[in-house]
């Protein structure tokens, strides 16, 4: 018989090692689908590594991909910390992107130091509002936020489609459903010559550091931690659970909205319905791999981004479906969940008969 006994205090090896091992196992498990696809396994791994790290260009691509993942990862991390199950980062991302286009595609004009903050604030606000709604429905009416945020993803995407065929449509797009481009002064400048990695990465890193400090060192972070770990005790001690949840919703939705801004203003230049290949959902994996630590999110976003970029490049080279990347990411999530269990519990195998 197997018995689980809680560990009083997991050591640093378990805390930091488990996510790394989980990620590694997920990568190794990818050999199974590769083999089933009749692909040369060693070569495939080599191609994935060189695809993500092989050149300055590939590293730049990887960092470009990591930028929105850091932001959606932070969005999931802060929400899950408070046990606010925000599965709607995808929708919040699109709302943020749309808000950025709404104010940044020529309606107003100004120098970069005005326009960049303006599109960021607009996007963050839009994302925040997208989550505050379901959060209020949860705290006031008792409506489960998991389902509402999930369904809102679909509603938002349809709404974006509608706007791209209507008010936000680019008259020059020759029928493609896409928005007018962001004006030059609102575009996130690239960090390297002729490379795609852009200011968004710096913003994402700053958000991660700021969030880490916020959670650890401030009164509000204290209250978020208390509400997330034991809402009943937090409430009893006088912390307003509702207010804390709304603050968390604003932060989480805002960060996801920023991811949309960064994609529009940094990577794409305009809004289209294929702006995000599921960054919102991948953010959940990023957050879980980071064990909800904001700084950890940076590392796990880099991992997930390199899986995506590496698998894309391998897929182009040897024709294995790039859905392999999604598969690895999903497996990494399940592995880190199991790993998380092993950090919290010791597993004992008991003899069936005593004596």
């Amino acid at each position, binding site marked *: *018989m197997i018995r689980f*006994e809680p560990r*009083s*205090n997991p050591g640093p090896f378990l805390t930091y090692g488990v996510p790394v091992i989980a990620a590694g196992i997920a990568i190794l498990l990818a050999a199974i689908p590769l083999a089933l696809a009749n692909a040369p396994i060693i070569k495939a791994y080599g191609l994935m590594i060189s695809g993500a790290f092989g050149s300055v260009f590939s590293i730049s691509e990887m960092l470009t991909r990591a930028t929105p993942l850091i932001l959606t990862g932070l969005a999931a991390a802060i929400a899950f910390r408070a046990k606010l199950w925000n599965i709607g980062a995808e929708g919040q991302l699109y709302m943020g992107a749309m808000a950025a286009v709404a104010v940044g595609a020529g309606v107003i004009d100004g120098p970069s130091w005005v326009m960049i903050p303006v599109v960021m604030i607009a996007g963050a606000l839009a994302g925040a509002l997208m989550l505050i709604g379901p959060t209020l429905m949860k705290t006031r009416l008792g409506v489960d936020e998991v389902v509402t945020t999930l369904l809102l993803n679909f509603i938002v995407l349809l709404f974006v489609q509608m706007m791209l065929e209507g008010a936000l449509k680019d008259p020059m797009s020759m029928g493609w459903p896409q928005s007018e481009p962001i004006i030059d002064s609102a575009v996130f400048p690239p960090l390297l010559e002729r490379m795609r990695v852009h200011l968004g990465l710096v913003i994402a890193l700053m958000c991660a550091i700021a969030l880490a400090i916020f959670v650890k*060192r*401030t*009164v*509000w972070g*204290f*209250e978020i*931690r*208390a509400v997330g*770990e*034991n809402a*009943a*005790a*937090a*409430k*009893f*001690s*006088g*912390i*307003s659970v509702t207010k804390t949840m709304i603050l968390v919703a604003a932060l989480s939705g805002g960060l996801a909205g920023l991811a949309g801004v960064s994609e529009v203003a940094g990577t794409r230049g305009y809004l289209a319905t294929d702006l995000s290949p599921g960054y919102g959902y991948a953010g959940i994996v990023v957050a879980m791999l980071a064990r909800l630590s904001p700084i950890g999110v940076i590392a796990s976003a880099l991992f997930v981004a390199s899986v995506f970029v590496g698998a894309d490049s391998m897929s182009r080279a040897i024709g294995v479906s790039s859905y392999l990347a999604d598969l690895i990411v999903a497996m990494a999530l399940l592995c880190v969940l199991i790993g998380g269990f092993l950090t919290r519990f010791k597993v004992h195998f*008991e*003899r*069936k*008969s*005593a*004596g």
Partner: protein
Amino acid sequence: MSSAAHTSPKTSQDLLLSLAGITKKFGPLIANDAIDLTVHRGEIVALLGENGAGKTTLMNILFGHYIADEGTVSVANQNGELELLEPGAPQAALDAGIGMVHQHFTLAENLTGLDNIILGTEPIFRLRRDRTKARAKLNDLMARSGLSVDLDQPVHKLTVGEKQRVEILKALYRDARLLVLDEPTAVLTPQEAESMFATLRKLAASGLSVIIIAHKLAEVLAVSHRIAVLRGGKKVGEMTTSDADHRSIAELMVGHEVPVSRRTARAPGNPVISLIDVTIDRGDSRRSLHGVNITAHEGEILGIAGVSGNGQAALAQLIAGLDKPDFGTVEIFGKKITKFDAHQFAQNGIARIPEDRHHDGMVGSMTVAENIAIEDVRSPEYQKLGFLDFDAIRKRAEHAITDYDVRCPGPDAPARLLSGGNIQKLILARVLEKSPKLILANQPSRGLDVGAQSEVHRRLLEARQAGAAVILISEDLDELLTISDQIAVIHAGHITSSMATETIDRSELGLMMAGQKKHAHADTTKNAGETA
């Protein structure tokens, strides 16, 4: 003590259960240390011990919830020969005729009593259930044992006493030969407890063996044949009840002389909190109050006696600032409260000790220091511009740990590592250090060992001495009668006028807790004028 005079049947053929050398460790803690225990047919054995003495662990091993590290459990088969019981298999225990009534009932509240009883008694893959035969057997059982209950009600509609009857019927329906009751009287009025004991005596006379787990002496002296005492995981004594004497058992249980907290005379001061015609209607009686009038004064402990689930939760929520009255007013120092807000209440000198200290009293993954400061992190002492002053927080924790003797690895250890008693000390440190004017103590000593209990009492009396008003909600009559100045009784959301403790008769209190007597001693009631 009447039944103790029964001589218990004690031939070896009558042996039903034998626990031999049971040892169980949880990490470094030895919960059971080589315990032997036997039970004979038709015998009622009381297993006495403090919280944490190892009683529940021992019974969980007997019932197959845990597996012992060493030792064996044997149960007599139909021929009276002892057979080893398969460890770790509740089904084997059930098949051997062992029935257990846990302190926290194991009933599915969405099902009826009948469904709960037949759950698991028929083969699970079957096209339909046969309830007619079950009903007939149960009607017969109820008639013979005197345990009557409406079996077609969903369990969530039953009273605590009725739920307990369903639990006992569950065991009897499975033809239990041994019934284990874990703290069966904790949730009953003295009268209900007496009637349950009468049932047990009747069942024992017809051959059922019973183990009663208890930490209160008086009750088991009245009903058991034999007493076994556990302390610190070891069996420290065993005797027939007729030979037992009250004081020596108490000392056996505790291991030293029991410290007794005593009130010193103190004249009450001005009213601190008054509830005037307060009504909170939340549909069910557990969470409702009806026209409640009570007042607590400076330097006074006002005990609220009652069986749990009679509105104590509503009263506690109200005084903790977590709920507001639908009708009526609450006055604190003569000022009508308009804003019911837990944060405000805590900041305004109301100390709140929650009923469920694990659930409401601490955030397990946060540190001891953070848990001590949790009510005050917004005050300027502990933050500047929203940034926490960890030095101040730690300093306070260090003081609290010394002053209140909180046993923990240090202020930065996660609070979940603390034992129940130390969590309670942590909560006391949190709320009492601010010299509160009003203390809400909801079941403050429940589940604590005697040492921790007397520590809680000492602190409450100290605060009373310093002039605080204390509202003590408790199910423990001994506790109430020891430290309260005044006692009021809560039943079905109604609270009687309070009576001076010295004038109270225990059995009368029991009747009032059962709702059978509304008023007592109107003449001796100090607050009669206010509550009339």
